[in-house]
């Protein structure tokens, strides 16, 4: 009887397999980490109230006149935003005075990447600190950026998003 010859993988084949496997791993890692940040879609319905919102001291709450079927808002804000990477927090000032008749959602956007999105800010509320969105800190390094606030308006009764929004240019300082 003939002895069956054991089929063994030649050395060069093994090396080739290892190289191919290594390349595959590298490509997979690159594909995962090099994808552009997915934009955060503005919700069509007002989200939950922003937990960091606080009442505006001394706010009169006297409502603006609003055209029938439309909306009226009042915005008070600072154009300077400071981001602290150590605690992944954005220090800012934005208020939805009681004069408004719309709820608001605030986004901080850098080069089409939403890095901060608040919950709903009802009229009479302000925020001075918001937490960065997940993975947003990984996109930033210390320095200065040009960005903008995007302010979305929602009907306080139905929660529907208005057809009008507002953009406000910002200077964003990122620090460690």
């Amino acid at each position, binding site marked *: 009887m003939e002895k069956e010859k054991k089929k063994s993988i030649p050395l060069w084949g093994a090396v080739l397999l290892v190289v191919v496997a290594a390349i595959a791993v590298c490509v997979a890692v690159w594909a995962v980490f090099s994808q552009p940040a997915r934009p955060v879609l503005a919700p069509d319905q007002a989200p939950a109230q922003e937990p960091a919102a606080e009442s505006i001291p001394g706010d009169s709450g006297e409502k*603006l006149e609003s055209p029938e079927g439309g909306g*009226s808002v*009042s915005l008070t804000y600072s154009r300077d935003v400071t981001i602290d990477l150590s605690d992944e927090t954005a220090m800012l000032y934005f208020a939805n005075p009681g004069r408004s008749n719309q709820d608001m959602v605030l986004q901080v956007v850098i080069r089409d990447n939403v890095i901060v999105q608040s919950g709903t800010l009802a009229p009479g509320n302000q925020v001075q600190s918001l937490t960065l969105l997940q993975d947003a800190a990984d996109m930033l390094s210390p320095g200065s950026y040009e960005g903008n606030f995007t302010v979305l308006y929602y009907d306080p009764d139905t929660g529907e998003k208005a057809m*009008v929004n*507002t953009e406000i240019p910002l200077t964003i300082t990122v620090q460690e």
Partner: protein
Amino acid sequence: MKRIISFTLALASALALAAPAMAEEATIGQGSQNIEVYAKYEDGSTTGTVYSVDISWGDMQFTYAKSGSRTWDPSDHTYDDSTTSAWTADGNTITVTNHSNADVTASFSFAPLSNLPDLQGSFSIPTQALAAGVENDYVGADSLTTALTLSGDYTGSGEFVQVGTVTVTIQ
């Protein structure tokens, strides 16, 4: 010797006690004296920029109406089209008022939904600067009102549905 020392000490004490009285008398004797007092102004206070803007808009309802008639021509199987189409608007104005203590510029843009690429929007005032608020003149705040006009064909729903978004940029 002790007497000399005691006498010297007593004399010194007497002179020391008498000195203020003598000095006072001497001042009164010389009359009033002008002392110059100096002052300067240093403005160390800070006036931060406070941005405060009001925006109001109408119901933004537009109707694309088609009128006229299309007549079938059996001789060449075509329609003789005498229809016309036009957009009409209701509540298509946006008003921006500047209550900031700094000038701002308001700009307006319209973006149609992605499934309506032929739809276009233009504003009667596309962009305009608004002056800073004047102290104690709230009602006189600078403002502008612009009107949105739509153009382009539309064959969508017979009901009002969203066709686009207006962005008000405050710079």
